[in-house]
């Protein structure tokens, strides 16, 4: 099985922070895997995902994504960035644009510069957007403005934008933490099934261990910028789970996340 992402001994601290967000982290993810990142706020999940997306600077260590090494000083080239899709916790949609426009934004990395600036999609771009809309069950919302949608519908748009990109690696940063439990399971099912159908690797972070178990085949637990658990879904017992969240469950309501 080929490797989708490989992290070797990576450390990173946010400017001005006392403690590192990533502390000598090593991780290998195989192509086609569905991996859940578990851990409390501030454990380093968002930083790890941002690193793999090529948007983190000034880290130390070795990272290669889809067979290409990442450079700590420079963003990956445009065409490479399109191969890695990212689903944001707060959707990160352009609120005043239509659903279709937002989904087509996922195609910008696949278009030549001028076409991307003008925003005139080719028939290939439109077809990719159409398939993504249908797969996410929002084809009927295509002409609606995003600011008129519910939270669940917005996350469907964000996932459709990611799928339209035709990524081989999908990174999702707490994609369902702002949704109610029923909606959360629906969206995670949608994301992981769409990825499986496309043969894409998924790495998603979550606060909810039960959801993580249901929708992944491997769990990676993080705490204080380190990987403290890595195993199959069955290996993660209740004791290991509560250990991941110890120290932080005593301060409910306080968000310790270092990276937003």
């Amino acid at each position, binding site marked *: 099985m080929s490797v989708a992402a490989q992290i070797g001994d990576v450390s990173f601290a946010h400017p001005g922070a006392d403690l590192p967000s990533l502390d000598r982290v090593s991780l290998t993810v195989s192509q086609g895997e569905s991996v859940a990142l578990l851990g409390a706020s501030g454990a380093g999940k968002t930083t790890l995902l941002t690193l793999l997306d090529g948007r983190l600077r000034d880290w130390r260590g070795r990272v290669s994504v889809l067979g290409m090494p990442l450079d700590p000083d420079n963003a990956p080239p445009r065409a490479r*960035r399109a191969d890695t899709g990212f689903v944001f916790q707060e959707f990160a*949609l*352009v*609120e005043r644009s239509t659903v279709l*426009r937002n989904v087509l*934004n996922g195609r*910008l990395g696949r278009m030549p*510069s001028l076409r991307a600036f003008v925003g005139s999609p080719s028939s290939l771009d439109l077809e990719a957007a159409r398939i993504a809309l249908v797969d996410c069950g929002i084809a009927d919302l295509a002409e609606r403005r995003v600011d008129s949608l519910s939270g669940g519908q917005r996350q469907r748009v964000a996932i459709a934008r990611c799928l339209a990109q035709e990524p081989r690696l999908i990174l999702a940063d707490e994609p369902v933490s702002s949704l109610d439990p029923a909606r959360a399971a629906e969206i995670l099912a949608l994301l992981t099934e769409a990825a499986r159908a496309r043969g894409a690797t998924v790495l998603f972070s979550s606060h909810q261990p039960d959801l993580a178990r249901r929708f992944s085949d491997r769990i990676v637990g993080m705490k204080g910028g380190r990987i403290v658990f890595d195993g199959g879904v069955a290996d993660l017992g209740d004791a290991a789970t509560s250990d991941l969240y110890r120290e932080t469950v005593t301060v409910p309501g306080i968000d310790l996340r270092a990276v937003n």
Partner: protein
Amino acid sequence: MRSRGLGSFAVGVLVAGAVVWSIVTTDVELSRLLSAGPRIADFLGRMLPPDPTVVDEIIKGGAETLRIAILGSLGAVFLSVPLGILASETMVSPAIYRPIRMLLAFIRAIPLILVAMLMVGAVGLGPLPGIIAVAFHATGMLAKFYAEAIDGVSRAPISALESAGAGPLARLRHAIWPQMAPVVARDTIFRFELNLRESLVLGIVGAGGIGFYIQTYVRSFQYDKAASVTLAVIVMVIAIEALNVALRRRFR
């Protein structure tokens, strides 16, 4: 605490000193103030009733003021787009936006009427100096507004487009512009309203528009005609404000 009390005392002395200095050195005679009542009544009496025969001049002057405001605003928009981008923290580095912001503050500090007088000297009488003056003066505010509109957008969609592989210009077009467009529309309409209000007085220094007629009629003691033109100015200001309010509702 002690130094703070001292500070307030110093400010108090400064303000009191400024007021006393102004009263003592300005020629304010109580007798002139008391005799002013009948003279103001006489002045107002001569304004009434307003002379309606100047309607042609009002239309001509009003149309010219409107043209000055429209072309001046257009010029300001053209100048403000590049300057606004160069004054924004999101788009350029501090080495660029700091001096540009200082330049804009400098432009804002020069009153329109002063720019108009200089332009009359430079290009002669008529609406052209008025148009140039309005474009120049309005850019100081409009470019600052545009920069703030760019800096006020949500960063998350920009990151999302960067992640998807969009270049800087594509991000500007598809993530920043859709968010700032309604703000830019509102700011531009607001600035147009200000331009129209301010260009009403440009005629006084010979830079074109309806102000020319107020100036002429007051100088020649035709107060009834001046009153008609003044009324027309008030109506124009109220009309543009109403139009502004109606338009702003459309941009959300």
